[in-house]
């Protein structure tokens, strides 16, 4: 696709389409297969959560969707395009990624971090770029006074918010989150979940997230995909997933930890 006709207008159809995906790594001991014939489809407007045991390949799957890993075979299509188009110039307008630890550039101030994708285009004037960044900063709940701070001066919650503003600076239709509430205290975690919910609504985002936190999972997800045995064993609405018989699901949702979060299901029926 040439640059001249590049459009961010997503065509109709699924936002993410993964078919027969194989991911494998070469290790000294031999080949390690992480995904085997994995299929997953994400429709527009969904909040899909990917859950799975540690080492089940959740983060690898996220990296496949971002085009940071190469599939051993199979294909990943984002908005109808092959995923290798994703890391090209202007990628910020196609997908936003919130890394687990924020991945803010520590040598840049908050405003420089948020404006970075726009500044790299080299076509927009500085004033417009900075104003656009200030709007996004306030949309994620930071104050204008935080703009000149360095990442080292921010709290964990503020780092996540600044990183989210950076991910959203070009209004991508697809947002990927890796453990969005990990490392946040319960209050900031709740605040962040509320923020994500309102942004999902306001910006008509499609969200894919990896999370271990059951509260976040049930409060945000419209759909849950469970990764086990190197593939997606079940993907569906939370109730359908919980009803699925599999040792991992019973351990994860119906254990003591799960029972507590299940209370939330009754409090937040909209999640179902």
């Amino acid at each position: 696709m040439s640059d001249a006709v590049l459009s961010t207008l997503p065509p109709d159809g699924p936002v993410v389409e993964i078919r027969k995906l194989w991911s494998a790594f070469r290790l000294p001991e031999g080949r390690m297969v992480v995904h085997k014939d994995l299929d997953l489809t994400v429709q527009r407007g969904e909040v899909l959560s990917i859950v799975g045991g540690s080492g089940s390949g959740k983060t690898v799957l996220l990296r496949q969707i971002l085009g940071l890993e190469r599939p051993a075979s199979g294909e990943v299509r984002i908005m109808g395009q092959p995923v290798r188009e994703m890391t090209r110039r202007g990628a910020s307008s196609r997908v936003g990624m919130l890394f687990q630890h924020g991945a803010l550039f520590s040598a840049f101030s908050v405003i420089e971090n948020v404006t970075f994708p726009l500044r790299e285009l080299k076509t927009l004037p500085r004033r417009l770029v900075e104003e656009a960044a200030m709007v996004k900063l306030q949309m994620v709940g930071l104050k204008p006074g935080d703009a000149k701070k360095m990442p080292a001066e921010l709290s964990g919650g503020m780092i996540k918010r600044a990183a989210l503003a950076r991910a959203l600076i070009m209004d991508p239709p697809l947002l990927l989150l890796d453990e969005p509430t990990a490392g946040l205290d319960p209050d900031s975690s709740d605040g962040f979940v509320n923020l994500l919910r309102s942004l999902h609504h306001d910006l008509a985002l499609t969200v894919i997230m990896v999370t271990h936190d059951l509260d976040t999972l049930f409060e945000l997800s419209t759909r849950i995909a469970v990764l086990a045995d190197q593939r997606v064993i079940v993907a569906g609405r939370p109730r359908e997933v919980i009803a699925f018989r599999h040792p991992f699901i019973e351990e994860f949702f119906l254990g003591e930890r799960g029972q507590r979060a299940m209370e939330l299901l009754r409090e937040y029926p909209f999640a179902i």
Partner: protein
Amino acid sequence: MGGPILAMNDATPRFEQAPAPQGTAVRLLGEWTAAQFARPRVFRELRHLLPAADAGKRAWDLREAAQLDHVGAQLLWDHWGQRWPERLELLPPQRAILERVAQFTARPQRAPRRGPRALYFAFGAKLMAALGHVKGFVQLIGQLTLDLRELVRAPHQAPWRDFSGHLYRIGVTALPITALVGGLIGVVLAYLTSRQLRQFGADAYIVDILGIALVRELGPMLAAILIAGRSGSAITAQIGVMRVTDELDAMRVMGISHTYRLVMPRAMALSIAMPLISGWTTIAGLIGGMVAADLSLGISPIFFVKALPAAVSLPNLALGMSKSVVFGILIALIGCHFGLRVRPNTQSLGQGTTASVVTAITMVILVDALFAVLFSNVGI
């Protein structure tokens, strides 16, 4: 509109003016998004044409724009003078975006212009920072002295494994590069001097010149500069990364002193490795010089080796070696000093490493000059 150079398509953000019931209406077409503005010339073209659409008097119709994102909305809002135009037609999602932009538009505060007063204070801050470095360095030396007392009191508890590891990494692995550089400098020096010496028929004195220059000055200096660049930077980077990843704090929480566990083994290893490397570099330089002297002046290696002890008296060797011990300790301490002062961000790590190497090399040359003045009548 849209010049002939510009590849126009449906997505290109543009507008057209058409007569409307009251005056002229401006209709937005195409995708008003950052991705479109990213294309070459699109944004320049648009900025060039926009002033033709006067904000106040025209009616604005956004309904036919295929897409409008926050950057596009910001552009419109700024064009409207950050006010709502009197007549505006738009879709509810577009209104939501524009309302957010209207609510949150703010200018980041500019750094105030620096007057003479600010420059004066900046100079003061620099001066204080330099004094802080001196103070920190003296503290480091003091702490190291206390640690050495601890070492003498309980030698079996000292970090000997670290010490031997550093000895290997700083010493053994540096042997090939120092030999190469030393040998080449020896060759160059011999060729340069042989031309002058031949004019006076003083060919045999090449042994004296090479011997004194390499044993007393060049060998220790070359070795020290190479090690400062190679190991000084590594020391700063290692300790600096430990700061970035909180490992230094973890160590302190365990009640283990940074200087005892990190600085002392490195300083000890360098104080032993440095004179050895310096001797090794000197030997490589002498061999290179010997070969070059044989080729250019016909001075046989046997004569060279026999004449060397007479040409270079023992105090010269002692001076070169003892200088190297001081260089080694200096390089280790400067590397550790800058490593421990790294702040937890990548930029500071880079600055610290650069400053460490530059300071170490400068200090080595300064101390070498000091030695030259103090011991000017020893050995020659």
